[in-house]
């Protein structure tokens, strides 16, 4: 969210000036500005309250749980409300290997999620079947053959920092409207779009994990973890 409020500074200014004005005339002539403001407000809310779907497939799900738990605390980014039903969630984190038996369920669950919705392919398996690519007769070679994916997170399994990096990257995509571009491209030609998105987004998440590693491993343990445990009491 940081910085984006500046873009709308004049809009906010305008709102302050006219907020006490009940003249319909003003609203009509400034309808366009009004829509812009509404769009900004909606996007900002969406970006900061992505509700992921409680959807664990395999090993990556354990790391997803760790990301949501005390130490890494996904709630700091507004994405800690894991919903147990597709009908209340915006984000599907495909955390694990997708098999043919499971593929139908995933597609169905994806269609049950209300728009707008996003998907993160967490880990090598969801990206392209990972270690099971060569001999996995029963493994789908990438979840983007089934649903459109916004972010690919590399790793087997990815560290929680990587998943947080992917979430931040997804927030960037939503803010810039790039997610809709990807989605449209996927609907048109899934394999081509998937290849492009893989290259672009996995680099970003990897870069984030790298920077964390360079800065000296995981976030400090004691303070934040104990705090959130205390809060939960």
């Amino acid at each position, binding site marked *: 969210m940081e910085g984006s409020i500046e873009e709308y500074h004049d809009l906010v200014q305008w709102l302050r000036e006219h907020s006490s004005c009940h003249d319909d005339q003003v609203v009509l002539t400034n309808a366009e500005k009004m829509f812009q403001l509404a769009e900004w407000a909606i996007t900002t809310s969406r970006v900061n309250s992505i509700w992921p779907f409680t959807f664990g497939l395999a090993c990556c799900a354990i790391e997803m749980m760790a990301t949501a738990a005390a130490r890494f605390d996904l709630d700091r980014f507004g994405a800690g409300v894991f919903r147990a039903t597709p009908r209340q969630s915006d984000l599907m984190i495909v955390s694990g290997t997708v098999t*043919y*038996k499971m*593929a*139908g369920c995933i*597609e*169905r669950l994806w*269609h*049950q999620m209300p728009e707008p919705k996003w998907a993160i392919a967490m880990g090598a398996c969801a990206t392209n079947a990972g270690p099971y690519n060569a*001999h996995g*007769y*029963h493994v*789908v070679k990438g979840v983007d053959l089934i649903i459109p994916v916004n972010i690919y997170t590399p790793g087997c399994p990815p560290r929680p920092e990587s998943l947080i990096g992917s979430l931040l990257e997804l927030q960037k995509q939503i803010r810039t409207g790039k997610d809709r571009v990807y989605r449209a491209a996927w609907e048109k030609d899934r394999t081509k779009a998937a290849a492009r998105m893989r290259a672009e987004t996995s680099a970003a998440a990897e870069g984030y994990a790298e920077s964390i590693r360079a800065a000296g491993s995981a976030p400090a343990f004691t303070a934040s973890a104990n705090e959130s445990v205390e809060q939960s009491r």
Partner: protein
Amino acid sequence: MTESESAPAATEPLTPEEELFRALKEEFGEAIRELVSAASPYIVVEPARIRDVAFHLRDAFGFDSLMCLSGIDTLGQKHSTKPLPPGSPRSAKPEPIGEEIAVVYHIGSVTTRRKVALRAPLDRRTPRLPSVSSVWKVAAWHEREAFDMFGIVFEDHPNLTRILCPEDWVGHPLRKDYEMPKRYAAWEHARRPSAAELAEPESRVAGEDASRAAEKNGITTENSR
């Protein structure tokens, strides 16, 4: 238990496997073929008698748990796992192995802490043998897995259907001549569910699925025989 264990009055010390082998040989005669002393020794059993042997092991020797039941396809296995006889020359090659599908039973006992392995060699074209799921109930799922992966048919099995692969899967993946499928038919025809389908209550889908699966199960088992 005591009767069979004390039966072979051995003059020289026998390993537990040899002791067990002799006791089984006395009981079942020709159906117990040989004792192979691999890293984990195993007893080769006539497949048609496997259930009788299993019942005897459970009731007379206290082998109360089936630890593992595995299928194995020996197509392409160059060497037998049998060790060479002692004193054979360095140049001696292990005997070549026939092409077969076998079922290997690893059986253990919690009360007596003994272990034994049985092996039932089968014909590769029509592998079938009696199910031991009436002896140890856990065998039911292990046998379904062996059926799924190798196409081994277990007679008198309560529900011999595929367990890991989808029910419309073609072929038995762990057979050595299995070819990696390029595509999977069910997903070739995959289509997006319509709005009406999505609005269906879940419970109804489950019920439908159950009856459909039951139908399919019958067909699958029939075809594979």
